């Protein structure tokens, strides 16, 4: 019986400033060591100042994960030496004097299984190390403190996962949830990291750290399970320890010599007073919390009669659901939803494409309106979408420019039909005998008109000619 637990670190990238100072929370656009100040550099005499919104964001996360939130929160120092720690201690949270970290005792539903969340805490990210130099002898360590002090929420689960696939599903759910809450952009490089712990058959628990990405996490978990299983088969004891993921060799390696002497000497961070989280704050946060993904999905299905799979795609992706909510009126909701999840998706499936896209909700409304009043065929709408994403031109402009207007004039369609009948004599005969094959002829007419012919009218006219 495999048991996997996770420790996920998520940066609150949507905040303006770091956890304890006013440097930028999202450090990615800066040159090395240009997003620093005396506080996040831990200069002598500097003092931390807790970010109000960070506490609120973290509380929202706790609520979204169905966690209890304490009446007061406190911060602690975790003392150890490392070059990426400006103060050689990290300010974090701990439940020592009762429950005082930002959340605990919650859960996430993963395909029917409740994964319990043991604890959520606010803490600061350290800086980043870069190693330079080829040989062991010439290697130096370069440190960039831009990231030091970035607000992190650490989410610790119980060892409730049974396999790495469940872990992957959970992480996707969690990413979507955090993005939907508007507190983080999990897609940003390094914004979400996870460490894990693995045990098999009720044996000792092994922690795995230093995992760079979710992709690596799955690999690391698979490797570790296999490693433990093969040890177990040979009746060798699985040692309780911490191992780190070696990305080059794709294996987990024992870190025991590093870890065993560690004593973090945890004690209260006295430069930060305890912060009261009162009921009024909780109520306001609850009121202001964006609608949850599951609630959105339910609403899309019930109110707008959208198919569950379509609703799922829309609700899970904030980009799509925002487009949808701003585009639809009650009557065309279903059409907008379909347009997004069938034709649009291919054009905006990456972060870069979305950033460059010029498409707005207005475009979507206009497109659906044009399709419904038959000035545009469903087929040409895909071409139109592509152009809109690229240039942002209005639907009206495009209709005239690109000659995408629907051909609904009967005589025009008729002349094309006669052409097709000439070219496809055998198909006409087949259609006479087997009415179900008549669509082939309709398709040919659509081809000749580059998708602009009104398909309903075309079918009507063809039928009237044949039967």
């Amino acid at each position, binding site marked *: 019986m495999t048991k996997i637990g996770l420790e996920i670190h998520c940066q609150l990238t949507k905040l303006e400033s770091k956890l304890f100072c006013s440097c930028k929370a999202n450090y990615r656009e800066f040159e090395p*060591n240009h997003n620093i100040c005396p506080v996040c550099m831990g200069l002598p005499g500097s003092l931390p100042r807790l970010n109000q919104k960070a506490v609120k964001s973290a509380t929202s996360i706790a609520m979204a994960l169905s966690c209890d939130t304490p009446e007061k929160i406190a911060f602690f120092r975790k003392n150890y030496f490392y070059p990426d720690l400006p103060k050689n201690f990290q300010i974090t949270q701990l439940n020592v004097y009762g429950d005082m970290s930002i959340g605990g005792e919650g859960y996430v539903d993963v395909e029917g299984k409740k994964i319990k969340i043991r604890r959520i805490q606010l803490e600061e990210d350290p800086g980043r190390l870069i190693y330079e130099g080829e040989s062991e002898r010439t290697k130096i360590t370069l440190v960039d403190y831009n990231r030091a002090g970035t607000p992190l929420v650490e989410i610790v689960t119980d060892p409730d996962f049974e396999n790495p696939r469940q872990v992957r599903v959970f992480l996707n759910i969690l990413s979507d949830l955090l993005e939907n809450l508007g507190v983080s952009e999990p897609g940003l490089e390094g914004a979400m990291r996870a460490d894990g712990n693995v045990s098999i058959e009720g044996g000792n628990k092994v922690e795995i750290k230093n995992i760079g990405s979710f992709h690596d996490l799955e690999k690391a978990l698979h490797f570790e399970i296999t490693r433990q299983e093969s040890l177990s088969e040979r009746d060798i004891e699985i040692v309780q320890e911490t191992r780190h993921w070696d990305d080059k060799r794709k294996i987990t390696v024992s870190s025991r010599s590093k870890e065993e002497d560690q004593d973090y000497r945890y004690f209260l961070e006295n430069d930060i007073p305890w912060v009261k989280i009162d009921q009024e704050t909780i109520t306001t946060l609850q009121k202001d919390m964006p609608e949850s993904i599951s609630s959105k999905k339910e609403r899309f299905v019930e109110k707008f009669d959208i198919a569950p799979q379509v609703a799922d795609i829309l609700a899970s992706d904030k980009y799509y659901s925002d487009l949808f909510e701003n585009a639809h009126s009650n009557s065309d909701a279903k059409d907008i939803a379909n347009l997004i999840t069938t034709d649009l998706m291919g054009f905006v499936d990456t972060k870069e494409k979305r950033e460059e896209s010029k498409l707005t909700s207005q475009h979507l409304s206009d497109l659906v309106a044009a399709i419904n009043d038959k000035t545009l065929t469903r087929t040409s709408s895909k071409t139109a979408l592509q152009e809109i994403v690229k240039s942002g031109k209005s639907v009206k402009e495009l209709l005239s420019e690109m000659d995408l207007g629907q051909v609904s004039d009967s005589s025009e369609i008729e002349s094309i039909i006669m052409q097709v009948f000439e070219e496809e004599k055998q198909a006409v005969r087949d259609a006479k005998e087997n009415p179900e094959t008549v669509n082939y002829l309709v398709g040919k007419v659509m081809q000749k008109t580059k998708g602009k012919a009104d398909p309903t009218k075309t079918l009507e006219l063809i039928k009237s000619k044949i039967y």
Partner: protein
Amino acid sequence: MVDEEEIIRVAKLMKIDLEDHTEHVGRVKKMLEYFDILDQIDLSSEEIVSQEKALDELRKDEFIPNDKKLIESLKNFREHYVRAPKMN
């Protein structure tokens, strides 16, 4: 009785090199032995307290750019990076 070996081990954890200064060990031991007095007082009912603040008293979430020259006024840097000794 405080174990001297342990004092030496702790010094190492605190990145203090005691090689030329073993006289510190004896003195630290004396101080620790004085602290034994803490065993004599009844503390069973005492709770830890702290300053408290309301959420809205905390710093507002704003980005305030800092002086770009800060890194240059510190030492040990190369092309904006801080140079640290090599890690094992």
